[in-house]
């Protein structure tokens, strides 16, 4: 088991490297002189040169990449000269709402998608199955910001059931915190519902047609036991995979949805940074989300091993 985890960790290294290189080269593609941007147009050439040196911009590109990467691995996501604070500090002060929306959205999505997918698989080819597929295609066509806007129009404006925007910190008022999270989370959940429903359905159809399920039937096991204890457990690995792989999009969805509901999360940080042309900040957020994605996928790898003894054993 430990060998397996170590192996997964090692296999993540090239991806971390590539993610770093992509992010680094993006910021260096911009062409403009960051030092000039920071000190402003009316500064003297000496002042610019000083800033350039302090930022290490006079070094060769590879050396810059190296220092940048070493800093990154120490948790240093860069420094925003425009906001005059480390990127990591800015992210940590904005992350809670974003994560809350993403996690709650994921929970809502799983609670809806998994029963739907299992149900559809059990009625493979019948009207109910087709209805579920249609529903999945529909939710798969609603980007989070659009479903956010529609939910806002319905729940906040027509029916006045939930607050239309804003955010309350959980330490201040937990009920208010949840209340403000419901609509953004639902909005984020829509695309995820589509993805997870489809995967649950097709994975369950595969499992339900397999020989060992027939064995459980011949043993006289009731349908529910067959479905959940055997088929679903076996079907869960592709489902977990798809949940892990769509996690990045979920965070991205949360970032976009925040701008709809005016939630002060990472999304707002990103939008404001775009307006301020604060590349360091955007790049930092980008790296941060990518690393979270890698970590979540490492966790799903561990989860595989917990579920499947064959994976646990096959350490090499």
């Amino acid at each position, binding site marked *: 088991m430990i060998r397996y985890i170590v192996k997964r960790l090692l296999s993540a290294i*090239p*991806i971390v*490297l*590539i*993610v770093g*290189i*992509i992010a680094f080269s*993006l*910021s260096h*593609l*911009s062409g403009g002189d960051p030092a000039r941007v920071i000190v402003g147009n009316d500064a003297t050439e000496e002042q610019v040169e000083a800033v350039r040196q302090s930022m290490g911009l006079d070094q060769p590109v590879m050396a810059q990449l190296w220092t940048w990467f070493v800093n990154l691995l120490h948790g240093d996501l860069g420094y925003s000269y425009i906001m005059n604070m480390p990127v990591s500090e800015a992210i940590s002060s904005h992350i809670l709402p974003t994560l809350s929306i993403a996690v709650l959205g994921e929970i809502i999505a799983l609670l809806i998608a998994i029963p739907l997918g299992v149900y559809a698989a059990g009625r493979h*080819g019948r009207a109910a199955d087709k209805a579920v*597929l249609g529903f999945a*295609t*529909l939710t*798969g*066509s*609603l*980007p*989070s*910001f*659009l479903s956010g*806007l*529609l939910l*806002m*129009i319905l729940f906040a*404006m027509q029916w006045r059931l939930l607050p239309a925007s804003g955010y309350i910190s959980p330490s201040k008022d937990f009920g208010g915190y949840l209340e403000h999270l419901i609509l953004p989370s639902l909005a984020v959940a829509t695309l995820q519902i589509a993805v997870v429903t489809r995967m649950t359905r*097709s994975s369950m159809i595969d499992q339900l*047609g397999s020989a060992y399920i027939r064995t459980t039937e011949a043993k006289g096991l009731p349908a529910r036991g067959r479905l959940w204890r055997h088929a679903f457990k076996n079907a869960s690995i592709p489902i977990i995979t798809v949940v892990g*792989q769509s996690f*990045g*999009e979920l*965070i*991205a969805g949360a*970032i*976009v949805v925040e*701008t*709809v509901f005016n939630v002060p999360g990472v999304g707002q940080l*990103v*939008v404001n940074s*775009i*307006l301020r*042309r604060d*590349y360091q900040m*955007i*790049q930092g*957020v*980008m790296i941060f*989300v*990518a690393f979270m*994605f*890698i970590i979540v996928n490492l966790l799903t790898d561990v989860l595989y091993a917990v579920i499947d003894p064959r994976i646990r054993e096959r350490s090499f």
Partner: protein
Amino acid sequence: MTAATHNPSVPSAAARHASGSSRLRRAARALRRSPMTLWGLVLLLAIVIVCFVIPVAAHMDAYTTDTAQMLESPSGAHPMGTDNLGRDILTRVLLGGKSSLTVGFLTAVISGFLGLVLGLYAAYYPKLGYVIMRLCDGVMAFPAILFGIVFVEVLGQSTQSVVAALSIVLTPYVARVVRSSAMSTMNENYVQVLIGLGAGGFRILWRNIALNVIASWIVEVTFVFADAILVEAAMSFIGAGIPQPTPTWGNMLYDSRTYIYNASWMTLFPGLALALTVFVINMLGDGLRETLDPKRRGQ
């Protein structure tokens, strides 16, 4: 059960002598059997015609602002109402469709091509394949929207950089599908025999393997088409997509946010247009998967 009890309907003679016309006929029959593909195609075609032809034919104008008609609710003159600058929303929805479909189509073509090439070579040359797949993993670690935003900010806001960003982000998805499909073809005996006979890599890849990959490739490219439209809309919605005042559904939704309380039609119509278009393309993708992709074909 046994294979013999299945599929009595496929005339083997027709399969063997698949002349051009019988291939067409078979395609037509497959289409008839798959209402999803048929409807997807018909509706997509309808959307394309409506978005590309009507604005030109009717000399519609999406840009002139008219302060006298700001935020008018839907009426005979403006079936979808007007926006905060008095522009006709119907016109802008149609022209927005034109931009969205163009971006989606270009992205699908570019990443479809790149993904096909990368996926095939990644399958055929394991070492190269390792590098390509790690690169894909790296790109896929970034959420498409975030990558798109940063890329467009860096290269400057324009339709071209949006297409470029989306193509880079979505190529790995195509490459992955192509690679895994090509790898399973490579395990087939006849390909191994060809390799053993010393047939050239290029020939095997493009003559034998590519043909077997095409079905799943088409399906995946269709979904990339839909994804590209979704991501472009999200980027525009954040204000980092195709620059204003070009009408795109994302831009229109971005504008609508301020007026959502008093002019919900500004949100509803572009939103519905976006959802409908993506729905139709996804439906087409599902239909194609059902008819083309043998692995997913129903029992």
